[in-house]
């Protein structure tokens, strides 16, 4: 079957009334949750997993993928209207989107965001189709040795890009792996770290940790913030002039490509992509100095890039079974809960799932566009949900989700505990994405490590003598280097005076954004600086 045939096959799956409904539900829920300041795509997906439980796995991943890009889109609405990005991936959008809204061009900014998200999403689905099959056929030859190395790489990549502090990122990752090892060891049946509690014999459920350290912790952070008003005058006309369309087209196309490849790289997600494209456009543009004052290109670039990156991050997830970002880690966890193990075999064994998801992404982009252009004024009302109501509601969502998992109050206690841990982590700048990734990859890592050593008769050198594994491990070490250099440089250079931080030249943002883990630490800048729902990233190197 050629690629086109397979895509048609995928459309056949995605266009069933049932799956169309799930795309719609996913995109809608994602948009709404993503719009709420504080709740990012990770929380959005985690909150939707309980609903996906009873579903067919293909439908479930179609819906959850819709939640993902819907949430990234929803984040842009609150960025533009409130200057309070719901998602770290849309922080860059607020640099020009909010000034546009202040100038009375909120509608235009939202329209640009919607169109460019569509362009970014669509272009990178093409990329996903083009790259994924060949990458998967290459990865089919991977054995446990290569897999172990690949997972180490996935973990270090997320750590290196995921926090402003390398040591804290590594602590998170190690603790994540530690949590993964709780329970009865599947190979020897020896009980590990259960404190004789039978509830822990089967390990700690990933959803409990995800809901705790993301959704619940975000709620606790929200408790202490003050909201920010922003533009509440409503949405003005969405109409774009022909000149404006011509103006935003080149940046949207460039940023889509850049965003896609950034998304494919492990560790770099929507956040890094949006900042990279923003600074690239600022450098290229003749009117670059008007960036930050409401230049439409400054909205087009990050919006195209963040959606493109969201789709791009599906490449390593679906072909290697290794999530490249915190959000895809949650998706992987969700898939494993549903009994699906993504990886190189998925394309050959579960083609309906892969191609169904790809096709649903095309559909999802269209739904997003249709849904958002006319309904934006209506959606913007979501932003008026008082946080006094929102906070207890999110808690109830979490409780229902966890209880539905195993009907155990013990799990609810664990949820509360992980909520508290997640809150303390956020307050002290420990990124949460490596913890989740460690939790998901930990078990797989150990299994592959054991298999590899079984084959090599216990010789640890096998990881370095196999060329692919050695290469991957070398890249893993290298991926930590930039963060290490940053730490060392920070020690030598004096700290910049504070006043310039928030107003700092955004052209230099990529440096600062490395500090943001993909979506996961949507509120990291918030917790760190106390800048509240403001959410601007103070570059703090």
């Amino acid at each position, binding site marked *: 079957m050629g690629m086109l045939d397979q895509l048609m096959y995928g459309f056949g799956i995605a266009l069933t009334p049932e799956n169309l409904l799930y795309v719609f539900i996913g995109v809608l829920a994602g948009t709404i949750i993503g719009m709420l300041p504080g709740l990012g795509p990770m929380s959005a997906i985690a909150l939707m997993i309980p609903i996906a439980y009873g579903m067919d796995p293909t439908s479930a991943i179609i819906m959850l993928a819709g939640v993902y890009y819907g949430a990234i889109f929803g984040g842009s609405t609150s960025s533009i209207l409130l200057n309070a990005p719901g998602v770290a991936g849309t922080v860059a959008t607020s640099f020009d989107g909010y000034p546009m809204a202040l100038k009375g061009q909120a509608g235009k900014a939202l329209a640009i965001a919607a169109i460019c998200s569509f362009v970014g999403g669509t272009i990178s689905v093409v990329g996903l189709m083009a790259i994924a099959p060949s990458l998967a056929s290459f990865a089919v030859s991977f054995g446990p040795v290569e897999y172990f190395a690949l997972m180490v790489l996935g973990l270090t990549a997320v750590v290196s890009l995921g926090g402003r502090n390398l*040591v804290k990122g590594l602590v998170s990752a190690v603790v994540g792996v530690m949590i993964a090892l709780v329970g009865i060891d599947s190979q020897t049946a020896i009980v590990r*770290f259960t404190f004789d509690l039978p509830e822990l014999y089967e390990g700690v459920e990933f959803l409990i940790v995800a809901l705790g350290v993301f959704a619940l912790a975000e709620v606790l952070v929200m*408790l202490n913030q*003050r909201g920010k008003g922003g533009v509440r005058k409503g949405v003005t006309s969405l109409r774009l002039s022909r000149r404006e369309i011509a103006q935003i087209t080149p940046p949207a196309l460039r940023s889509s490509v850049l965003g896609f490849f950034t998304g494919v790289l492990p560790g770099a997600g929507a956040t890094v992509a949006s900042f990279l494209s923003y600074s690239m456009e600022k450098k290229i543009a003749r009117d670059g100095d008007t960036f930050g004052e409401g230049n439409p290109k400054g909205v087009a670039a990050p919006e195209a890039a963040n959606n493109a990156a969201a789709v791009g991050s599906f490449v390593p997830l679906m072909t290697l079974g290794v999530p490249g970002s915190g959000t895809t880690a949650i998706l992987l966890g969700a898939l494993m809960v549903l009994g699906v193990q993504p990886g190189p075999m998925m394309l050959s064994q579960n083609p309906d799932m892969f191609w169904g998801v790809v096709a649903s992404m095309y559909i999802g982009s269209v739904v997003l566009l249709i849904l958002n252009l006319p309904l934006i004024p209506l959606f913007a009302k979501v932003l008026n949900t008082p946080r*006094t109501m929102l*906070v207890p509601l999110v808690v109830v969502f979490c409780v229902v989700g966890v209880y539905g998992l195993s009907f155990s109050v013990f799990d609810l206690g664990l949820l509360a505990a992980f909520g508290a841990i997640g809150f303390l982590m956020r307050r002290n700048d420990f990124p949460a994405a490596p913890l989740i990734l460690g939790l998901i990859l930990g078990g797989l890592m150990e299994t592959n490590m054991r298999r590899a050593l079984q084959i090599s008769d216990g010789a640890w050198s096998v990881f370095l003598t196999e060329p692919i594994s050695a290469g991957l491990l070398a890249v893993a070490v290298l991926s930590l280097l930039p963060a290490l250099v940053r730490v060392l440089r920070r020690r030598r250079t004096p700290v910049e005076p504070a006043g310039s931080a928030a107003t700092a030249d955004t052209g230099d943002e990529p440096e600062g954004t490395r500090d943001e883990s993909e979506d996961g630490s949507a509120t990291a800048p918030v917790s760190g600086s106390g800048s509240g729902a*403001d959410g601007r990233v103070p570059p703090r190197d």
Partner: protein
Amino acid sequence: MSENTTARRDGAPAEGAAQGRPRRPWAPRTPILPERAFRFSPRTLGIAVGLFAIGYLVLAFQMPAYTAVEVPVQPSTLPRWLGVALLVLAVLLFFQRKPEETVAESGGEAADEPREGGEPRLGRLDDPRLEIGLFVGALIAYIAVFELLGFILSTALYLGSMTWYLGYRRHLVNAVVALTLPFAFYAGMTWGLDVTLPSGPLPF
């Protein structure tokens, strides 16, 4: 920064709040900025992580070895390595520079930005630590009565009381939401998705 951005509960903007505002009950003597609450120095964090690592290592070394068949990797192998790695990281953390010098300044600057029509901070206590503690306490209470009272009753109680406590002023709306939403949830989950939530004393 806390003084002039502390808005009153009724949502009045900040200015003047510093002088005229009556002290909330449980106000700490030296006000604690919400942004500062639960932030610890690298030393404290290093010690905490280190103690955790030591505890973990003790458990890892007590783990029985698997002797039925010879295996290259014991169940305790990876945990021991992880424990050692965490211990090393804890030491590195301990010797890190205190981030407060930078954070305090940049944080202050960001928070001092003018906030048009900003909402007040949620809750009623001046000490953000107590506020968080109270919130977590309420969550634990909710969990404790979850099966006893059933989903609908416990959730209605939790939602209504928390929304009221956090400062939502439209009590009728609050009551309607607190009563209808748990029921809708229950109906959707139990009858729609076959995820049975506890019914408690209610007959359905």
